[in-house]
């Protein structure tokens, strides 16, 4: 909406007049699925998750989608989605949806309880399904977790997953006590996840521990 877009709009308008029905059919919307780890000691980090969600609400535009889900012992379930919304095309309606979303998140933050296990893979599969359903042009999964997956014996997750054309970003990957003793564990854990995500077809894998860098990532 600046001078540049005004100047590009003039010839584009002429082009559009020449070629009726040539509107860009590709989706230009963003879809973000955020997994919030509530297992073990990481549950106390949930306040930071609220900050990230607030930031996302401020950044996402009309037509974009946002969903926040918790990571529990078994996360491959719609029940784990705390809040989800595809923002209305009208900015005023979108703002109302964002306010409602924030309230839902605040309720979750107040009532969040820890879980015994951490099923990140299940959350990823659920997130990929949600994102693909939105049909958004740019899909992102934010994993707010220490990336330490712990599954119970009966949960099966050791199979290839599909994250094609999805950008996966691990946020606030805190170091565990064992990581402090041997940092190779931390590095190895992240490396394993990177391999797994890339193998699943993800367009990008990023780790962002400083939340200020999240802004740059979302704008890129």
């Amino acid at each position: 909406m600046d001078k540049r877009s005004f100047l590009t709009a003039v010839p584009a308008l002429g082009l559009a007049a020449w070629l009726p029905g040539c509107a860009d059919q590709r989706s230009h919307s963003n879809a973000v699925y955020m997994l919030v780890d509530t297992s073990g000691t990481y549950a106390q980090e949930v306040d930071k998750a609220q900050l990230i969600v607030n930031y996302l609400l401020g950044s996402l535009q009309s037509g974009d989608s946002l969903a926040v889900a918790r990571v529990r012992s078994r996360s491959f379930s719609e029940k784990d989605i705390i809040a989800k919304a595809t923002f209305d095309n009208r900015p005023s309606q979108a703002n109302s949806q964002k306010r409602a979303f924030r309230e839902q998140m605040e309720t979750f933050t107040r009532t969040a309880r820890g879980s015994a296990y951490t099923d990140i893979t299940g959350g990823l599969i659920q997130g990929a399904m949600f994102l693909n359903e939105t049909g958004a042009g740019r899909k992102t999964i934010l994993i707010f977790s220490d990336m330490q997956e712990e599954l119970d014996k009966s949960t099966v997750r050791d199979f290839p997953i599909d994250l094609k054309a999805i950008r996966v970003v691990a946020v606030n990957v805190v170091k565990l006590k064992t990581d402090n003793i041997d940092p190779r564990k931390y590095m190895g854990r992240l490396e394993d996840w990177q391999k797994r995500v890339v193998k699943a077809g993800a367009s990008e894998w990023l780790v962002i521990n400083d939340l200020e860098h999240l802004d740059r990532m979302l704008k890129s």
Partner: protein
Amino acid sequence: MAGSALWMIVPGNAALSAIVLFLIAMPFLYAARKPVHELVRSVGHLASGPLRLASRWLLAVARDMKERNKAVLLAHGREETGQLITREFERVATLVRRDLEGYPALQRRLLDEITRVEEDYKKCGEVPPPPPEWVEAVDAVAKVKNGNELVQRVLEEINSTIKEIYQKTLGEYRNAYEERHKILNGFMPFWRSLDKTLAQADQKMTSLNDRATQIDAQIDKYQEIVKKTDKAEHALTMSQLTQFFISTLVLAIAAGGALINYKLIALPMSEMVGAGDYLTSSLRTSDVAALVIIFVEATMGLFLMETLRITHLFPRIHNLSDQMRGRMLWIALTLLVTLAGIEAALALMRDMLIADKAALLQSLATTAQQHVANDGWLARIPTAGQMLLGFILPFALAFIAIPLESFIASVRTVGGEALVLLARATAFVLRLAGNLVRNSARVLVTLYDVVIVVPLMVERLVKARPDGAGGRNVSEARLKSHDVDEHKLVARRN
């Protein structure tokens, strides 16, 4: 490395090897002198010929374009000056009709006023005092001898009577003067009216005279154009150039206004057509919709100016009947007012959306929510300003038609002149390049002779021997003839 050293006849001594090679090659170079000269000249000619040809063609094209431009310019100037003269004549006709229509009345008024002034003037003529009839009686009485008491009394009576009559006459005389002064005083409004009427007549005549002078100037200009003089062409070109720059400047200012207008309505348009639709990867449909609104406003302004006969971009509109033109005018004006109203509403919506977004971001911020002071009517000033701007800008944009017409009219002349200039510049560059190539070929020929100067000297010595005098003469004659041919060739090429 080994390969590169193969040419060295004297191993390890490149300079000596080069000299030896050069000496070996020299006889061959001498033998190949004529064909090499021919080759270099031919290549030079091959390269310079097309360049010079292209240069000539471009100059011819520039001449043609110049002629065409001149014809168009003069035709345009003739039309424009003709219109101006017609307009001036219309004005003069209006002036004459209006003023001459009033002249009989003016004349009658002047005559009335003059008659009245004359009558009044006659009235104020000096009234002579009554003839002194009693003087003779006094003389008769005075001749009577003194001492007569009766005479004394009569004289006293006469004296008192004379005094009374004198006082009465003096009073009447004064009254008469007073009357005349009053009449003269009554002249003043008539004089003033007369002066005003004459001043009006003078002003009208002066105005008519000015118009006539302007028409004279336009007629002179028109005659110059008809005669197709360079002076007229130059004047028209300069006029068009000035028009071009002025209209470009005004259009740039109008584009700035359109940009502001666009910024005002682009955001609220997303509320109407949705913010998530894109025409291209970076161009939202709402942005384009805002632009369309601005263009529609500009078009309505264009039609408005056309129907008002301020611009003449569409001959069809210009040729419409007055009734139809009037209808079109009202339709265009109504649409423009409606669009201006929509823009004002959109400007208000923009303000509301921005305020809503700001409130949302504030509520999402981590810091505690701060109470925003309500500035009352002060906070409403920007909103009102935006609305006013949204309402006014469409009307301001409507006037874009006038500079647009000037721009379109002048761009033909300016563009044509620029093309002529470009063609001439290109022709010059091509001619320069052709000359450079041809002269380079000559330099190469001379350089070749410099390289094989030793065999050439030997040749000259051999030809200069006494037994070869005849041969020398023949050779010199051949050389001279060759030089003459070369000069002729050069002259022909030039």
